[in-house]
């Protein structure tokens, strides 16, 4: 069985329904990546899986129990989530921000145990932000800041970690750096779920891919098996060729030339 799954989810913001009757299962130990065009409901789904958005209908199950039946702290021991654009409080240092990841493990009389210290130091070393501990978060570059947020999420020590577009606003080098780090975390045994925009990076890093369009799942499974030119066109409405990535052998999506797109050729190539 899977530790995190959802059944019959209907999600909406006020009156606008984003998805209806959606079922999804996150395989244990997977690096699951959700892709899809803008406004397809992928971030909304991630929020629902992290109980940041209550479903209108349906249920999210964490360890076979409705996620709403746990206390906020109990969920935070099992499942972590990094929103797309988290807010750093004014004038906070890197160390203090990462330390906030320990909230679920603390109490009034236990504000900073030796374990807290050890876990935070380890999280900061793993994300290579240890030397920045006394710097202010506001002074950091985008790539550094994203690693700091990841360190905070790591300090929470959850077996399941959800990431909402962790590579947004980063240049290609830092995108790869962040995803390499995610791959490391996955290899250490964590279950990762990430929403990503870049299809080629998604197919390269994901062990399980979920493609969404208009609130429905179009395809899911091993990216090497499910990513085809038809599937990409079905999901994104983009004519493309799919070739093996010369580096990794994973599917590489090449949009067809605009001249060919106009004449309607190319969709079935590859």
């Amino acid at each position, binding site marked *: 069985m899977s530790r995190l799954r959802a059944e019959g989810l209907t999600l909406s913001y006020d009156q606008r329904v984003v998805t209806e009757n959606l079922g999804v299962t996150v395989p244990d130990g997977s690096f699951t990546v959700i892709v899809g065009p803008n406004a397809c409901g992928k971030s909304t789904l991630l929020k629902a899986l992290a109980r940041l958005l209550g479903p209108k209908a349906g249920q999210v199950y964490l360890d076979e129990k409705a996620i709403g039946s746990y206390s906020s702290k109990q969920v935070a021991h099992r499942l972590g989530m990094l929103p797309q654009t*988290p807010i750093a409080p004014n004038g906070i240092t890197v160390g203090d921000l990462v330390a906030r990841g320990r909230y679920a493990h603390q109490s009034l009389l236990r504000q900073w145990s030796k374990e807290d*210290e050890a876990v935070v130091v380890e999280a900061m070393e793993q994300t290579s932000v240890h030397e920045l*501990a006394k710097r202010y978060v506001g002074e950091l570059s985008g790539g550094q800041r994203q690693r700091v947020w990841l360190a905070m999420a790591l300090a929470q020590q959850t077996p399941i970690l959800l990431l909402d577009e962790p590579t947004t606003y980063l240049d290609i080098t830092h995108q790869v750096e962040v995803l390499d780090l995610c791959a490391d975390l996955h290899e250490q045994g964590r279950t990762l779920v990430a929403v990503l925009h870049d299809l080629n990076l998604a197919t390269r890093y994901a062990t399980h891919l979920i493609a969404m369009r208009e609130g429905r799942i179009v395809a899911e499974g091993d990216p090497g098996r499910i990513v085809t030119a038809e599937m990409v066109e079905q999901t994104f409405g983009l004519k493309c060729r799919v070739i093996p990535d010369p580096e990794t052998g994973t599917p590489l999506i090449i949009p067809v030339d605009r001249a060919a797109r106009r004449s309607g050729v190319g969709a079935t190539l590859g």
Partner: protein
Amino acid sequence: MSRAQVLSGAVVRNPTGSVSARIDLRAAAVTLVLVLLALAIALHSLASGDFEIPLPDVVRTLLGQETGGAKFIVLDLRLPRTLTALLVGAALGVSGAIFQSLTRNPLGSPDFIGLTIGASTGALLVILVLNGSTNQIALGALLGCAATAVAIYLLAYRRGAQSFRLILVGIGIGAMLDAFNSFLITRARLDEAVGAQVWLIGTLNGRSWDQVRPLLLAVIVLLPLAFWQSRHLNMLSLGDETATALGVPVERTRGLLFACAVALAAVATSAAGPIAFVALAAPQLAIRVTRSAGSGLASSAAMGALLLVASDWVAQRALPSGPVPVGIATGLLGGAYLCWLLVHEWRKGR
């Protein structure tokens, strides 16, 4: 106590490590200095006045060793007023700090989001319509403030109370109540209107133990409650989503803190009228002198108490025009200090 490796500040643990606390050394030192300053000014104002009493006698009186005339002047005439200043200042400071932290906006203070105006409406109704006593006026202010808070919260609540809407709704309700307050005053008899106007500026005149006791009780209950919640309040400054993800029960925490801040503002306003600027300025000043990233409830309490007790001394003794209501002095002192700090920061290019 040990310096933490990654944290700013220090950590204290018992030998087994089962109990631990984090201490921001600079904030703790600054808060201590502010408290001492406030107490020093409080002592000075107990000693000075139309009838000067030497400081040692004041201290002896407070310790219960003096009897006679000094005892009456210090304990019955001056102490209620000074205590009211300290308590109201601390309550306004903490209330402002909680609101500014919840709304992530300095303009989210109780004076701006209509709470103190709502308290004024309650008080004015009692003064002008019901011709009530001092205690009834205080009760009217308390109820006015609470009713306004409920209205703001209900109107601003939509999929969680959002800070920006909370401020805008508060300003809107405040504007309506302000208009209603003006209407009440224009309909009043001249002498009543003058009395109402004095209440509206905020004054500590004529405080007696009857008014101090409920204030003291409320502050003794509410301040520890607020301090107890401050760890959670700091987490809320990460935004609702991150705070929830990290394990904070966001709605419950915010509801409790909102109620606590409303109660503090209500109690303070009902005790001394809508004293201007303390709730806005005290937290901002505290943040700047402690240079802390937290919500700084303790330092805001100390700063609020210091601001009000100092303002009261200025309003009573230091102005050539003679005594004026303390609300005038808080506006002058707090405003001048805040402007100076902001200009200073811009000069340093921060």
